[in-house]
């Protein structure tokens, strides 16, 4: 099984040339050109026209490119976006399986029309209402194109008409449901730890890194970043450190030795190394290897 490594997905308004320039220079695993909330209503048409030229700027292998589309403007946005170089779309306001199916069908048609490999364009769904949180299973499993799912926490708060306080996370249930249902369906849950996922801030990299680690330890597999400064601390949080990899290699060795000697429970610093711990070590090592492959691919693309 190959692991999909998409640690950071940098969201940039399609109309913001400076931010886009910065985004290409960042080390983001993916960039999402925003046609939705990041673009003022009057500039939607202008934004759409900027997508194709932007796609042409992307270096293959360096970052994946996505476009966040408006649900009410789905067909126009998709028609402007589905060109060579596009990896997928981010579907905001996914309310029901129907919404996903509609996008799926429209993508299929455009793929056929434009000679793009059928079924190759992915979908990242964003959940923004209590209705969608409740129905999340049918939304996530509506199409094989769905590879990631996340909450848009500020829009979710708005649709619930609440004003959350930073100390009291209102999305413990919603986020837990996202993580469980996505993982069960083989889709990667993405999101930042509370309250940063709700209210994006620019803060020192170490703090961002700590928050991204909390996100990972809540089950998330990546973060949609609202600003280029998030990319590095996020990538770091979702890449197992060398020490961690070394420790887990030691765990695997000790455990293998224990098994050879007839026991499946080996003590290490007061902890018990058994099958689940060994399984976890496998996950850490496999993730580290997949990250290394992705990073190498990005380096080569930069050099090219």
């Amino acid at each position, binding site marked *: 099984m190959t692991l999909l490594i998409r640690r950071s997905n940098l969201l940039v308004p399609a109309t913001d040339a400076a931010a886009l320039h910065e985004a290409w220079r960042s080390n983001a695993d993916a960039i999402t050109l925003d046609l939705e909330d990041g673009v003022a209503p009057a500039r939607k048409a202008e934004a759409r026209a900027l997508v194709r030229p932007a796609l042409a700027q992307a270096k293959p292998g360096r970052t994946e490119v996505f476009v966040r589309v408006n649900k009410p403007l789905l067909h126009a946005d998709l028609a402007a976006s589905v060109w060579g170089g596009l990896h997928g779309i981010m579907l905001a306001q996914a309310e029901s399986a129907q919404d996903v199916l509609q996008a799926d069908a429209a993508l299929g048609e455009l793929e056929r029309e434009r000679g793009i490999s059928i079924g190759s364009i992915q979908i990242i769904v964003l959940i923004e209402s209590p209705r969608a949180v409740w129905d999340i299973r049918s939304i996530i499993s509506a199409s094989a194109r769905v590879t990631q799912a996340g909450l848009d926490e500020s829009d979710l708060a708005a649709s619930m008409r609440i004003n959350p*306080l930073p100390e*009291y996370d*209102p999305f413990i249930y919603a986020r837990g449901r996202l993580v469980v249902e996505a993982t069960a369906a083989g889709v990667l849950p993405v999101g930042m730890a509370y309250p940063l996922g709700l209210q994006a801030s620019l803060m020192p990299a170490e703090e961002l890194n700590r928050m991204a680690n909390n996100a990972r330890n809540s089950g998330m597999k990546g973060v949609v970043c609202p600003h280029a400064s998030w990319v590095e601390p996020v990538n770091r949080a979702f890449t197992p450190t060398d020490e961690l990899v070394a420790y887990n290699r030691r765990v695997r060795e000790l455990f293998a030795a224990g098994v050879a000697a007839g026991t499946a429970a080996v003590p290490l610093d007061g902890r018990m190394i058994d099958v689940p711990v060994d399984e976890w070590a496998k996950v850490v090592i496999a993730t580290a290897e997949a990250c290394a492959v992705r990073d190498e691919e990005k380096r080569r693309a930069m050099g090219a």
Partner: protein
Amino acid sequence: MEHRLRRSWLLTPASSPEKLAAAIKSAADVAVLDLVEFVVERCKPAAREHMSAAVRVVEAAGKEAYAQVDAQLLYADLHASVWPGLAGVVISRAETTEQIKEADQVLTHLEAERGLLPGTVRIVVACETARGNHAAYELATASRRVWGLTLGRADLIMDLRPEPSTEIHMMQYLMQRLITIAGAVGATPLGAWWRAPDRGLLATPDNTLQAARRGRAIGFRGALCVREDQVSSLNQGFTPSPDEEHAATRLLAAYDTATIAGNAVLRQDDRLFDRGTARCARSLLDLAAACKPPLAMSS
């Protein structure tokens, strides 16, 4: 769009005229005439007898009258409670869609028989048991009368005790689950984020205020309480503070300026505001406006 506020719901035993007199003097938005939690078994017949007078007293005091009825004794409790002036019923310990449908039918029948406008008596479903919570979505969609959902006294009825952190066991999960369901079906979630030592909707005025603030931050829009001295705490906790109002006003002004300039993301200091945050600020101002006392009518 209805503007009536229902921030504080004071439970008062229907068996006690003295407690009712105190309740209507309070600032409660809703008086809940209770036939379930605070009425001992042998006082039930007398309490039911009091109901029609009690509903009139509450109405006359300018409050909304609700009756808290037992899901297991629907027929008797509803017959005792549905009189002109009754705004709704809280169905305590609701567990099955059959109960909600039965309540709906009995209400329809009584509305016709007793001269109430058809379909006007609302239902608040109190999910106070595990089964009730498990079925909350089905209960909420079992009748068009369902207006609100609450955990009521689930902490006592489900025997959920405090964890060492002072959180009530399972409560964060149950509260947010119920709020999600309410949002999904368009019902109003009622409750507050109580913590130990608060129990069974009972707390000091200060703890009540904190519980209401926390509750509002996660989606509750009003809460039930037991004592008159909790009422103003609930009203205050479910009303945006002047500071919040001020911050929201400033944010919206800045956001609108940014939008007019063609930017949809506003950066202030180190914080980024998007359309979602702006929508939240707008709903806070709407709520704040609704909580303002109406301007005095000139005569």
